[in-house]
């Protein structure tokens, strides 16, 4: 059951991230399997978001490397790439814990920005686009089609021309995922996608993520606190605590790992049995 080591889409190799004297992530290594939904979990302050930030170019890790392996066989060292290339060339897209939509632009425009690079090329760097000549119209139409496809998938199609800021919270979260998918990523990183969603929205999110994994061959790496989401949809779970990996395996393996229970309940390893007994596990 360790196929993620044989066919990984992302390899985190001995990554350490220090902020001054604080070690947020310490010598962390793990693999994200191709075609998996991988969950990164851990108590608050465990370093999950720091790992995300390193993988998407937000931070440069102090040590270690992060390798993205695309289907075509190309390898990219993400920690050395400027951030716009991580999306454009390495095929990694991400969302944030707090919503970062372009609030003043319409839903459709939000998704079109995500397709900026192919459109720039198709419009001969704007000259053709301005004159409406060349392959630009076709490319633009295709981009609109793709955007509408994802709006449809996230049940937002009827609001395509509204400003993104007017959407309710749950819909904004879905739009963020739709926008990330419009960059045609091979790896989609989601930072707490279920945060603040009601149970029905949460269930829809699970369906959407399965759809993305199965129909678009996109691997998903997510940070999540909602254990019901994690255990239900993940193929692979990695548990962090104090910047170190304490468990790595299938949801069932992780669920029964005493170290994980200890980390979540805040007790030392040797007290786990006793605590479990007390809480009736």
């Amino acid at each position, binding site marked *: 059951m360790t196929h993620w080591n044989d066919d990984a889409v992302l390899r985190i190799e001995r990554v350490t991230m220090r902020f001054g004297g604080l070690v947020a992530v310490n010598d962390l290594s793990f693999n994200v399997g191709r075609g998996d939904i991988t969950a990164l979990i851990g108590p608050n302050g465990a370093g999950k978001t720091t790992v995300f930030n390193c993988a998407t170019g937000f931070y440069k890790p102090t040590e270690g490397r992060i390798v993205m392996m695309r289907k075509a066989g190309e390898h990219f060292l993400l920690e050395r790439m400027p951030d716009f290339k991580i999306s454009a060339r390495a095929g990694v897209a991400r969302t944030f814990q707090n919503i*970062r939509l372009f609030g003043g632009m319409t839903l459709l425009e939000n998704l079109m920005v995500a397709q900026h690079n192919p459109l720039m090329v198709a419009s001969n760097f704007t000259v053709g686009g301005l004159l409406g000549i060349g392959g630009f119209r076709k490319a633009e139409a295709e981009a609109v089609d793709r955007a509408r496809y994802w709006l449809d998938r996230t049940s937002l199609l009827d609001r395509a021309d509204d400003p993104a800021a007017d959407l309710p919270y749950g819909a904004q979260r879905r739009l963020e995922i739709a926008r990330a998918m419009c960059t045609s990523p091979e790896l989609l990183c989601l930072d707490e996608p279920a945060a603040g969603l009601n149970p029905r929205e949460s269930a829809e999110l699970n369906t959407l993520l399965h759809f993305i994994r199965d129909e678009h061959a996109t691997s998903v790496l997510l940070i999540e606190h909602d254990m019901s989401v994690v255990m239900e949809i993940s193929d692979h779970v990695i548990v962090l605590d104090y910047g170190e990996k304490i468990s790595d395996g299938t949801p069932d393996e992780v669920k029964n790992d005493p170290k994980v229970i200890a980390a979540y309940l805040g007790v030392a390893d040797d007290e786990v049995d006793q605590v479990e007994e007390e809480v009736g596990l």
Partner: protein
Amino acid sequence: MDYFIQQLINGVTLGSIYGLIAIGYTMVYGIIGMINFAHGDIFMVGAFIALIVVIALGITAATPLLLLILALVLVLVIAMALTAVWGWTVERIAYRPLRGSFRLAPLITAIGASIALQNFVQISQGARNKPLQPLISGNFKLWETVTPEGSFVVQISYMQILIIVTTLALMVGFTMLINKTSLGRAQRACEQDRKMASLLGVNVDRTISLTFVMGAALAAVAGLMFLLYYGVIDFYIGFLAGVKAFTAAVLGGIGSLPGAMLGGLLIGLIETFWSGYFSLEYKDVAAFSILAIVLIFMPEGLLGKPEVEKV
């Protein structure tokens, strides 16, 4: 009434030139939140490049009309291209290295860049006024009112028509660029959240560079218009025109494109009417006083969006 219409025509012409420059201020402010104080001098450089090309091509008022039009289009294209390079260079040298630095740093280099451009032109071109013979003369007579005291002719010169039409065409093209093309979308996205745009694959540095390039190209158009309209330029014209255009951008609501155009028109009209009806000497005072009054009651400008402080 006739006098009023005549002043209106003059004011719209002047306002068009201010508006073209103001767009450069407003776009740069929109995307990186700084005032590019060197923009007025980019306009001045554009006027000088235009003058040099006009002289190099040997255009005079005697040139046959068709050839004159072709030559002026060529001047326009060359001036826009070269001035755009200047705009790009200023951004690359003076602003990009300071991105992420404290807010005042690029402001100071902007002032530095402004002084550097002025002095460079002063030294390389000389400090004296550079005159140009009128290339396009002639008027289109709209109507004439005869009164016992004499007659008053309301007219619009061909030059004024050229300026207004060119400005209108550029405004339409520009609005399309911002609203319909991928580059325009990327610019608007960078305006709202540069980091997020970058994570979606938008090359933010290049987008910002292109914004400067576009602003400089429009300033070059304004420079050529100024040169043809007034027939005299010097190394210092960028300062006052820049301050006026900046005022126009703030008046219209900085960050807003239609606002910049509207502000430009208003400043042009205020100036013209004030000098037409009151006194020529106090036209700048009038323009700036109205700016101050508008800002007291509408701090975000006429068409600007109210600033919402992010928490």
